[in-house]
């Protein structure tokens, strides 16, 4: 599959390509493409970063307790909402100790993923999360964060013992020997499952749209070769039907952002839970 490179990426490479090449040279990394050292997903991630920062800055100037604007209310829905899937709601539900402490990290990852999933709905942009490296980055941040929280809560020895089911009696220790490698593996596998879930969902969603569009365009061209009128009539199909897949993409994006909020919340809750 060949990558389509957008104008934005070309422009970005034109502006910052030499700087990126210099940085890569200093870090002794061989760039895969000397013409365009900045890949598309980096540009799109930067777009998401800029978009999120600008939205947050605009929101901060308009914050008011007495007269919350529509934008502020939407932003508050991301934190808490009546359907209980806001970031704060999920953390309150799953984390026992001081859940609001984790809103910053978990919420940042959520908003980054939500914006970057939705980015490919707009023309001339593409989702950075459709490239496997970006979800991996999000997963690594989450993984390091919940392990760090577990280490802070239990201490190093205590946290390692939670992997063995916090043994107290002799019989527990016998079981712990079996439990420890399994738990260690399943915790490490969270990194893989978080990455692949997000990446494959967004990638498959994009692919579905592209495949249906190409099928319908082929149909239209076939009709155009038979009769020109038929081609025009069939030309309505590739305009209308892929819209349904854009709707599906929006749905999948929101669901994946939700999943990437609830799973870190559960993991943090498990890492910082006290055995009774």
């Amino acid at each position: 599959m060949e990558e389509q490179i957008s104008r934005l990426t070309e422009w970005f490479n034109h502006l910052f390509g030499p700087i990126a090449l210099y940085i890569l040279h200093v870090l002794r990394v061989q760039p895969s493409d000397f013409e365009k050292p900045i890949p598309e997903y980096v540009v799109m991630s930067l777009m998401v970063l800029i978009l999120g920062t600008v939205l947050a800055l605009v929101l901060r100037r308009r914050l008011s307790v007495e007269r919350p604007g529509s934008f502020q209310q939407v932003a508050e829905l991301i934190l808490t909402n009546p359907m209980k899937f806001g970031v704060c709601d999920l953390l309150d539900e799953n984390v026992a100790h001081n859940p609001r402490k984790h809103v910053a990290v978990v919420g940042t990852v959520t908003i980054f993923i939500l914006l970057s999933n939705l980015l490919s709905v707009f023309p001339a942009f593409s989702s950075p999360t459709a490239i496997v490296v970006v979800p991996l980055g999000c997963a690594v941040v989450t993984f390091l964060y919940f392990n760090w929280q577990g280490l802070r809560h239990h201490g190093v020895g205590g946290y390692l013992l939670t992997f063995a089911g916090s043994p107290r009696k002799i019989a527990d220790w016998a079981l712990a020997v079996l439990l420890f490698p399994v738990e260690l593996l399943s915790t490490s596998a969270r990194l893989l499952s978080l990455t692949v879930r997000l990446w494959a969902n967004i990638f498959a969603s994009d692919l579905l749209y592209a495949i249906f569009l190409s099928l319908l365009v082929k149909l239209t061209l076939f009709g155009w070769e038979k009769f020109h009128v038929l081609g025009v009539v069939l030309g309505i199909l590739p305009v209308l039907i892929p819209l349904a897949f854009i709707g599906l993409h929006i749905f999948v994006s929101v669901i994946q952002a939700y999943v990437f909020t609830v799973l870190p919340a559960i993991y943090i809750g498990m890492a910082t839970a006290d055995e009774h």
Partner: protein
Amino acid sequence: MKKVAFVLIVFAVVMLIAPAAFAQEAGAKSASSHTGILAIAAGFGMALAAFGGALGQSRIGAAACEGMARNPGASGAIRASMILGLVFVETLSLLTFVIAIVLYLKM
């Protein structure tokens, strides 16, 4: 006049979209000796994954519907855990999808 404008807009959209859609076809196709087997493996793997995943997801959906019908007050919590369960099942199917893509790229 309006009709002509509409037809022109449709054409413009199709012309704009078509190159992006057809660019997919021009992918590198290095012929290997296992192409047929790889294609069968990818297709059957995807079919099995869809089969199992659909069965599992249908059970989750049915159970969630039943629970919500019996106790509409708890529908919020049921919906949340239903989505979580659906996502876990979907992940396994998507792992197969990833493997199918890897096989496709090897063809």
